[in-house]
């Protein structure tokens, strides 16, 4: 019997993997991701790598031009020509703008400072020029108040906020909230998409089998349970293959494309590439958000962001997260896959599936939405607790909570309930399946289905 189950699973796997649609999709998605990554790199480059050169016409006589600090994104160069000429000159030189500091500028009440830019001046550009100016003015004023260069340097503080989370026992832990929530979000999305995409495939597959009228032939040599489980497991293997290939191929394609796109070994682009490399097909959204978050981190403390992100990743309970992810990934898929299978078996016409789909997909969609909104923000709240215990919502809710740390008793209870849950749905689905697959031309109702549970072998 076990070998028959294996044969069924093998057929499901091979026929699906050999399909043109599978091959096309498997190749196309990594290319899309690579293209997306390329696009991201380009944006990051055009935004940050292209240094904006701003000419400074300083007529104030305060030596402000020398005090303006250039950054990799913003470079100040002194201009020696009068304003009228300079206005034309900076455009010819393809510089981003011209900063004009008029004569007789009062450091205590600086008015009349003008910034000329090409076309519309972005707020971002304006803010960075302003902050450079502010710094220059305050330095100037501090020096005027009699501070020496050394004192001035000592006054400058480079604040680098280190967030430390305290666990219940009062032990200190470094926490990087962005990395943690990014990971939570990514894992949840992965499970959600996997259950949805391949659960529906189970339903369709059984529906097709039913409408091809091959069931009676199959059932005369295979037990319905083996037939159903073979299908569910075979499709799971297809899904895992596809996700794995997507992961590998998009890593390859992205790194090739980003190495083509990057000429300078800029840490920023490197980071963008890393971020999009970790992006999976399914994770496009998550990845994008993740990128932005990392970018923000990067702005606050450029350079150190990556190593820090990795450091905080390393401090997460990786073992438990990985274990939990696998358990909830498989458990959730089995739990929902069996229910999708039952729908496919019960319904005659594919269009009738809608009414039965809703109660199955509702908890799935709900748990996803609640997880990425409420639970991500408050991973230890009562909603998070209950949703991560109930088997229908726990595959997503618990995985979201995992990176934030979950008490072991809760994890154990949740996994025990999940296992009980999928044994229950598989049992239920098998009862519906064995009657449903031989039932033709009947419009099925919930009442009808509940009767099937009690049919004898």
């Amino acid at each position, binding site marked *: *019997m076990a070998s028959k189950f294996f044969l069924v699973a093998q057929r499901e796997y091979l*026929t699906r993997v050999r399909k043109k649609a599978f091959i096309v999709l498997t190749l196309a998605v990594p290319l899309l991701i690579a293209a997306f990554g390329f696009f991201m790199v380009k944006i990051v480059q055009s935004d940050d790598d292209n240094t904006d050169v701003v000419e400074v016409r300083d007529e104030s006589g305060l030596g402000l031009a020398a005090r303006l600090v250039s950054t990799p994104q913003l470079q100040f160069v002194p201009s020696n020509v009068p304003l009228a000429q300079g206005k034309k000159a900076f455009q010819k030189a393809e510089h981003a703008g011209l900063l004009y500091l008029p004569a007789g500028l009062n450091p205590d009440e600086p008015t009349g400072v003008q910034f000329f830019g090409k076309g519309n001046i972005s707020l971002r550009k304006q803010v960075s020029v302003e902050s450079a100016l502010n710094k220059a003015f305050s330095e100037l004023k501090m020096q005027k108040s009699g501070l020496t260069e050394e004192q001035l340097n000592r006054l400058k503080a480079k604040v680098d906020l280190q967030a430390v989370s305290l666990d219940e026992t009062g032990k200190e832990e470094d926490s990087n909230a962005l990395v943690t929530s990014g990971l939570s979000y990514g894992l949840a999305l992965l499970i959600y998409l996997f259950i949805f995409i391949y659960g529906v495939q189970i339903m369709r597959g059984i529906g097709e089998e039913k409408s091809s009228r*091959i069931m*009676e*032939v199959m*059932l005369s*040599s295979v037990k319905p349970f083996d037939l159903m489980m073979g299908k569910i497991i075979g499709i799971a293997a297809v899904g895992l293959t596809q996700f794995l290939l997507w992961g590998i191929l998009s890593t390859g394609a992205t790194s090739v494309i980003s190495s083509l796109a990057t000429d300078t070994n800029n840490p920023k682009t490197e980071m963008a590439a890393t971020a999009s490399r970790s992006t999976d097909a399914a994770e496009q959204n998550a990845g994008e958000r993740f990128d932005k978050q990392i970018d923000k981190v990067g702005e606050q403390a450029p350079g150190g962001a990556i190593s820090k992100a990795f450091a905080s990743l390393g401090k997460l309970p990786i073992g438990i997260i990985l274990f939990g992810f696998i358990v909830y990934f498989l458990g959730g898929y089995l739990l929902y896959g069996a229910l999708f299978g039952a729908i496919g078996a019960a319904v005659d016409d594919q269009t009738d599936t809608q009414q039965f789909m809703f109660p199955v997909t509702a908890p799935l969609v709900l748990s996803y939405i609640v997880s990425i909104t409420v639970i991500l923000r408050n991973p230890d709240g009562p909603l998070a607790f209950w949703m991560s215990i109930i088997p229908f919502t726990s595959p997503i809710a618990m995985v979201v909570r995992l990176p934030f740390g979950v008490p072991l008793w809760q994890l154990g209870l949740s996994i025990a309930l999940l296992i009980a849950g999928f044994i229950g749905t598989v049992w239920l689905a098998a009862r519906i399946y064995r009657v449903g697959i031989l039932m033709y031309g009947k419009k099925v109702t919930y009442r009808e289905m509940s009767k099937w549970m009690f049919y004898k072998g």
Partner: protein
Amino acid sequence: MILEAIDVRKAYAAHVALDGVSLAIPEQSIFGLLGPNGAGKTSLIRIITQITGADSGEIRFRGQRLAPEHATEVGYLPEERGLYKKMKVGEQLIYLARLRGLSRADAMLRIKDWLERFDIKAWAEKNVEDLSKGMQQKVQFIATVLHEPKLIILDEPFSGFDPINANMLKDEILRLKQEGATIIFSTHRMESVEELCDHIALINRSRKVLDGPVKLIRNQFRSNTYELEGRSNNKFIVMHPDFEVLEHLELENGHFRDRIKLHDGVNSNDLLRYAIGQAEIHAFREVIPSINDIFIRRVRETMPESLLETANALL
């Protein structure tokens, strides 16, 4: 006996499908399971093929209680034909054969053999959906017998076959019987299998109404009636106390056709001798009731009184 059913009972929510059916199917025979649509034939077959179980009663396969390991000894061609549409013919046959316990290598050898026999070798690499209906039927038949089952169950086997393929199928069935297999035919078109069957069982309204060897049943239902065809210049009329004319047809040019029942103790030679003296005889044969006739008669006999009245009123 290759298969015995003992007092098998099966009920669904709304109705009783089988009500205490017992059967015995001898080895190497062709057994006709006959009855109108909805009589319970398919329910019985599904129990024999272990797709469903009986509520009570027992099925024995060669004396043993029917168990999952017997599945490889049974080949089943259901009335609802179907194959995986997007699978290649060869692959599909290998798959189905392996599910019935054949090794891949064995399956491939036998498939080659069968495809040649049915002259569809060129189709092995085609998807099933690209085949004509008749071709699919052939493939399905091959799938049924590929694992050389001892018991082959064919539900309405000839539906969907054109006459040429139907004949081909009949020949194959006879050959399989010769090689030692037992075949169960299930059909509501009784005339289509009459000539093939050694044994039959008639099922009506979830009960067996009659079973036994075809010859015996027919003898049992013989009515000592003969059909006489010939020509006579004068009008031919049977007037004899030993014979009873059931039907007399006068055709052109003095041709006639009579159906005559012999009274007890009279044999066919007496009638022939009598007729030869009066007319030119062209044909003389016993009127043997068809299985269909027997079935109708039997159903009438076994019907409850009240139903019989309504049936008579309708007829």
